Structures are given as structure tokens and as C-alpha cells.
């Protein structure tokens, strides 16, 4: 019985260590686009777009207890209703078109592709920094491309920072995601760009039901993101 208890203790500590090592992993730094690759004759580039999973809403950070989070959600509920009803994904689609247009200036063989499976379901790839966390190499044959460019938008809408119950500032226009290119021979990043645009609304934010200041700052965040992508490609 005692042995069983010790085993359980070790198992628990090992599990916790594994969990914490994942939390402590170094985030992928920016990789500037390696343009040498485009000198290769017949390089085929595929561009995939991963849209956000949810509708535009307010993303709350810093409300670190359950009650804090519920209070924070209550404070932004009417803004959420507005964002969900009025912010469509057409501006995000324009970002995808910008990626296509910019890469088309680099290579003649650029096309939009649909991934046969979601990125989450791809196998993990054990590589160092500079390599994709998922194994994209299996897509080389399936899609008939050499370089996969992924525009992945995680969140969009508004961002509000809290200290427990208290907001630190106004809700800001927000878009978060990443743009990365993977060499499908090596699974190495040819480009990695994190997109995290937050824009302060001009003036009073709390103007229901149309929230013009926050809405404008959302479109400002989108434009900032577009510019960042143009500059990076």
C-alpha cells in the first residue's frame, strides 16, 4: 500500500513537471522571410488561411479568478453583442488576399490551398526553435507544393486588460494571429511573424449600441496588421 502511494506521488510529480515544461517553452521568435528560396526554379507556394474559430468578441486578460472573470464579462457584454452582430470576417479575407498578392510578387507559382486536415490534428514535430511545432511535411505530396504559407488568425474583436475586478483601460481594437511559411522538405520556418495589434479607441469607448470608437479601433487594428504583413513579405 505504501509502495503504491510512493508510485502515485512520483507519477503526480512527473505529470506536473511535464505540464510545467510545456508552459515554460520559449516562444518562437520572428523569422524574417528567407528570400533565397524564391530563386529556386519551379518553386510551388501554397497559401492556407485558418480563420478564427469564434466570432468577434471582447478578449479579457488579467481577470484572474472565476468571479473576476464573470464580472469582467458582464462589463463587456453589450460590446460583445455589438461585435458579434456587426463585425464580419470580410476584412480578414482581405488580409488573406494581401498575403496572396505579396507572395505572387515573389514567385510565379502561388495558389490558395485548402488544408486536408486542421493544423491541430497534424502530428507533432520535435524540432528546435526555427522549426514548426506540427509536421507539415506530409502536405508536400498531398497538396503538390514546396512551401506552405499559413495565415492563422486566432482572435479578433476587442481586448481589455483587467487587474482582477478592475479594468486597467478601455477595450481596444484587437487582432491576434500569425503568418508563417514552412519549407515542406525540412519543416523549417522560412518566415514567422506574430500579429498582435491592439488599438486604443479615440475618446469614450462606452457608447452603446454601436460603439463607434471601439469599432473604428478594430478596423485600425486590421489595417495595422495588413501593413505589418506587407512590410514583412
Amino acid at each position, binding site marked *: 500500500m505504501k509502495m503504491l502511494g510512493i508510485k502515485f506521488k512520483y507519477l503526480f510529480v512527473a505529470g506536473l513537471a511535464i505540464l510545467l515544461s510545456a508552459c515554460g517553452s520559449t516562444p518562437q521568435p520572428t523569422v524574417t522571410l528567407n528570400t533565397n528560396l524564391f530563386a529556386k526554379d519551379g518553386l510551388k507556394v501554397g497559401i492556407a488561411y485558418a480563420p478564427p474559430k469564434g466570432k468577434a468578441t471582447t478578449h479579457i486578460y*488579467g481577470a*484572474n479568478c472565476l468571479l473576476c472573470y*464573470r*464580472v469582467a464579462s*458582464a*462589463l463587456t457584454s453589450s460590446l460583445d453583442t455589438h461585435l458579434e452582430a456587426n463585425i464580419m470576417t470580410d476584412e480578414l479575407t482581405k488580409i488573406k488576399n494581401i498575403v496572396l498578392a505579396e507572395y505572387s510578387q515573389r514567385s510565379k507559382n502561388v495558389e490558395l490551398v485548402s488544408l486536408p486536415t486542421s493544423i491541430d490534428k497534424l502530428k507533432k514535430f520535435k524540432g528546435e526553435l526555427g522549426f514548426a511545432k506540427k509536421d507539415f511535411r506530409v502536405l508536400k505530396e498531398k497538396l503538390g507544393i514546396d512551401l506552405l504559407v499559413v495565415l492563422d488568425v486566432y482572435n479578433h474583436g476587442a481586448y481589455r*486588460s*483587467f*487587474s*482582477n*475586478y*478592475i*479594468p*486597467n*483601460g*478601455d477595450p*481596444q481594437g484587437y487582432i491576434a494571429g500569425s503568418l508563417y511559411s514552412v519549407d515542406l522538405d525540412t519543416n523549417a520556418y522560412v518566415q514567422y511573424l506574430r500579429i498582435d495589434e491592439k488599438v*486604443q479607441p*479615440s*475618446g*469614450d*469607448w*462606452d*457608447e452603446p449600441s*454601436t460603439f*463607434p*470608437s471601439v*469599432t*473604428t479601433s478594430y*478596423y*485600425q487594428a*486590421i*489595417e*495595422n496588421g495588413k*501593413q505589418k504583413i506587407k512590410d514583412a513579405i
Partner: protein
Amino acid sequence: MRFLFIIFAITLVGCGSTPYRDDYTKHVNIIREGYLDETDFKFNFVENPNVDLRGLYSQNDTANASPIMYQGVGGVAGLLVQIGTHSSLIQSQRNSKLAKDQEHANNQILPLIDITTEVPLRDLIGEHSSQIVSLENVGTDTVNIKPIFFSNSDMTELSVKSIVWLPLEERRNKRKQRFKYKNLIQVYSPKLKDLQSQQLTNGDSEFLLEVLSSLLKTTLYITKNELTGQFSKVRKTAQTFIVEENSSKKVIRGSIVANKCGYQIIQDIHSWFIAYPTPEIVASLNNDFVSLCHDKSIIN
């Protein structure tokens, strides 16, 4: 539990409010069919008769996170007191951040502020001087205008934001509404060329006042057209416009209500009017239209 949330929410709505800014207003328009007659248009600079010029800054008032541990003593009442104190602390940080940023931005354009501090707005309105009324003759049909000029730190972009309002003749009982009309009008100058910017840094007051005058006259043109009902019929779907402000690209969502004097006048989703030089003027090397535009034939 739900009751507790309601109390929290009510308490925290106050905590989450944006710090007050005098260059901002919500749009109010209950004029309906009672627009002003063009020939009776008159205005006054009520709050400050002199030029108010300020440095432009980002206006991001988000304070750094300041997590605190709430004490368990005193029950719900004690918790609310602690939340109130925490909230006051953060609100004070936000106000202080804005004040510091404004002071810093003003210091960067001190040469321009020194020139303009004592200049009366009345000296900048040119042909509109017949429409201004003295303070003692201000009536309920007199348009009140409060212009605030801005310059970026490089002194290459000047703009004016004006709060424009018409008071409500009789304040109806128990109603908070004090205005028949209230709006914000913003006018940007074309970006100044190197030589022009040099003129400003060298203290060329004549050139500076010419630019400020042009901005103010365009504001008066928009005010008059809006309050005489000229823009009320123009309604289009919103689109995105990109303008340059403080060396970055600023988005305006709205629709064009007029193209005039080298400006596109946009009504944005706040219902504010924003006049920005047309793409042709932005690309042009010649900014002399600023002074050519405001002759009487165009204004009237």
C-alpha cells in the same frame, strides 16, 4: 448570487469609464426639420477666444496591471470598499498617464505654442468675420464653437478638432438633454513640405497663422453646411478611409458627404465630420490651395 453580480457591475461601470477629454464629444442631433437659415448663420467662440494649440500624442490611457490581494475582512461591504480603492488607484494612474503624455507632447512643439498663445481666433476667420457675434449677443440660435489645434512633434502635420453645439432652447424637465445639436469636426492640413516645416521651426508666425486660419475656415464651412441641412440628405454605406496622422496610418470608417476645396469631407460612424486632403492634394507638391480655397465664392 445574481444580485451580487449586479452590484459589482454597477460599481464597476464607473471604474471602467474613459477619462474625460475636452476634445471629444458624442454626436447629438434633435434639430429634425429646424435647420438654420443660411443667411442667419452666426457663431461664437464661447469658451476660449484665443488659439489653443497642443501637441499630438497617442492617448493610450491603459495603465499597467496592478494586481492586489483583497483582504477577507468586512464581508461584502469590505470587499466593495477595497474594490473602490483599487479602482480609484487605477483611474488616477490613467489620468496621470494622459496628463504626462500631453505635457511631453506640448514641450515638443513649444516654439509653435509660444507664437499662438495670445492670438485671438477672431483674427483667423477672414471673410467669416461678419458671422461672428459678441458674447453678449449670443442666443439659442448662435452656434458655439470650441476649436483645439494640434501639431505632431515634427511640426509637419497640423489639424484642428472643434466641438460645435447649439443649446436646447428650453431645458425640458427631468431630461438631461442640454443640446439641440452637438458634434465634432476635425480638419487636417496637407502634410507640410520640408521648407514649410522649416519656416515653422524658424518662428514664421505669418505662415503658421495662415495654416491655422485655413483649418478654421474649413471648419466653419462644414459647420455652416451641416447646420443648414446641406449634408443631411447624404447617406451612404460605411467604408474604410486611410489618412496619415502623426506619421502613421489612421483609419476612418464612414462615407464621403462632400468634396470641396481639395478636401474630402467624411462623416464617420460617430457622425463626426472629418476633412482630409484628397489623394491628389496629398500627392501634390504644391500646398498653395490652402490659401486659394477660401474666397467668398466658394464658401457661400
